């Protein structure tokens, strides 16, 4: 049982082993951006497999997750399509030039949709936003998903204008009890 003392369980004590790993640095931030679709995953159709790929042999093959993460780490040298980077003229706080462009533009995209100032820099405000409780469903359908089934992306495009426009007339909602 999780230990608590007060009647409404508001002092519930969470064992540290059960704490989610926080986003603290660029590496964990990149994992966050990749997990929720801000960084496009590798487009496997563009990857050319030679006969012998020099991938580690069976003994190192410990399980699907590790196996694939092994590949994903190696693929940073692979070319990645640019995510659409609408630079809206914000003067940048000089993100580190050596960081990959994909990481910076993904960071800017996340900052933009989260209502943060779009700096392209992994700053404190971005760190706080990344550590907020959230849903596990990715935020962005990666381009590869969308193009695979044009029908879907068209529908989403059709949906977006509706989602982003205001209702035809102001509709004050009074929060009355149910």
């Amino acid at each position: 049982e999780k230990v608590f003392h007060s009647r409404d369980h508001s002092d519930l004590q969470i064992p540290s082993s059960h704490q989610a790993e926080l986003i603290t640095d660029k590496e964990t931030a990149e994992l966050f951006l990749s997990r929720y679709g801000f960084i496009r995953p590798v487009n496997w159709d563009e990857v050319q497999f030679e006969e012998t790929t020099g991938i580690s042999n069976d003994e190192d093959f410990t399980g699907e997750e590790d196996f694939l993460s092994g590949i994903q780490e190696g693929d940073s040298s692979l070319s990645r399509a640019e995510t659409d980077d609408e630079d809206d003229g914000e003067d940048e706080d000089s993100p580190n030039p050596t960081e990959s462009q994909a990481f910076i533009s993904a960071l800017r995209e996340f900052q933009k949709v989260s209502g943060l100032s779009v700096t392209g820099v992994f700053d404190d405000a971005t760190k706080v936003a990344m550590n907020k409780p959230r849903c596990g469903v990715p935020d962005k359908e990666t381009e590869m998903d969308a193009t695979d089934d044009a029908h879907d992306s068209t529908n989403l495009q059709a949906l977006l204008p509706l989602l982003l426009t205001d209702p035809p007339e102001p509709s004050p909602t009074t929060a009355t009890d149910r």
Partner: protein
Amino acid sequence: PIRPPTTATDRPHQSPSTTATDRPHQHQSRLVSLLSKRRQKRHVRRHAWGNMAFSKMVLKWRLIGEGYSSQLTIQDQRHIIRLAFRMWSEVSPLEFVEDTLSPLEDVDIRLGFGTGRHLGCNQKFDGTGREFAHAWFLGDIHFDDDEHFTAPNTGSGISLLKVAVHEIGHVLGLPHIYRTGSIMQPSYLPQESGFEINWMDRKAIQHLYGGCKGQFNTVFDWIRKERTQYGEVVIRFNTYFMRDGWYWLYENRTNRTRYGDPVALQVGWHGIPTDGVDACVHVWNRNTDAVYFFKGTQYWEYDDGKDQVLTVDPEGHRYPRLISEGFPGVPSPIDTAFYDRRDSYIYFFKGTNVYAFDVTANSLAPGFPRKITAVFPAVVPGDHPGGNIDASYFSYTHNAVFLFKDAQFWRVAAAGRSRDRWRRPSLPHNGLMPHREVGEQWFDICNVHPSALKV
């Protein structure tokens, strides 16, 4: 997760699930197979948010037995999740029913709590904080039981109701929406009291599944006289839509039904037939202030003070009374009726005829019955309900009479010095303006599954 194949017929955009037993042995082909399977899984995971996920309107859900939370009673969990489904049902044509008996593969939406590696899911939970739940396009919703989920209005923590409404939104096909006030924002916002699905989220789900349509048995404004603390008499009214055995209060100022409606008739109206009425008429003039409910060949008078039907009328007749006795010359059952304060007539509709009943003379007005098309002629030739009117309604909000049939309505052109007549002086008396869809003027009046009707 390896799930039994679900039939593709009732789910568009679904690919067959894969099984683990078909792994090859040769290293190279294993790589290709794993990647292709990975891509297939991703195809399954690769949702098409923004599309309707179900092609049927009644969906079964179940909180799976091995997925109960350890933090809330099972009863609380099921109550909160049932409420979450009801909230979507109140704003869309979808209906949800809890199914604890059918084989799991027949259940459309399966929910469960878990921690870390859970319920055969290939996306691990991360412990307390950050990710609190996720949803899969095929209808699975998982909640991270390491989170401190709470029931509505009870202490700090993460509102299970808000999270459930969000994840159900995903399963129904909604993507994340970055808009203030939207329930589909990716990050959790502590629940302000009384959170509800706002206008834009309603339009988003209706964009996928269509608006709510249907016939109404009756629509009426309920007038009440109240006394303020200064002793003044104030007239208030509320608008009610009734269909079969349930009803909604409609809030004209906020363009929506009351949160939590529809509700079973007997919850709010005591003594009237529980399976629905044909009409409600409020006769209100200098001498009379009486509300009548009509059903079949009978009618009841409603006592506003006691909030129940009267058992006896002022002359000692027992209720329910026969329509033919109380309203001589009016046939029954009727289709609908409304009271017109301008001429103190009750207009009863039946088939293609209309019967104007003079309450003062207690008899049919001279020359009636007449054809509806004669009494309420079409302003645009051919654009007329003809007969079998579902409901007729004088609206104090719009100061106009409306005739409803199926999902459409016709507004009766106003008389005298009105805007209608100012614009088109040649309008026929009581002419019916061109029809419109009910959903264009009265928004989001949606059914819920009968099992969700509070009795």
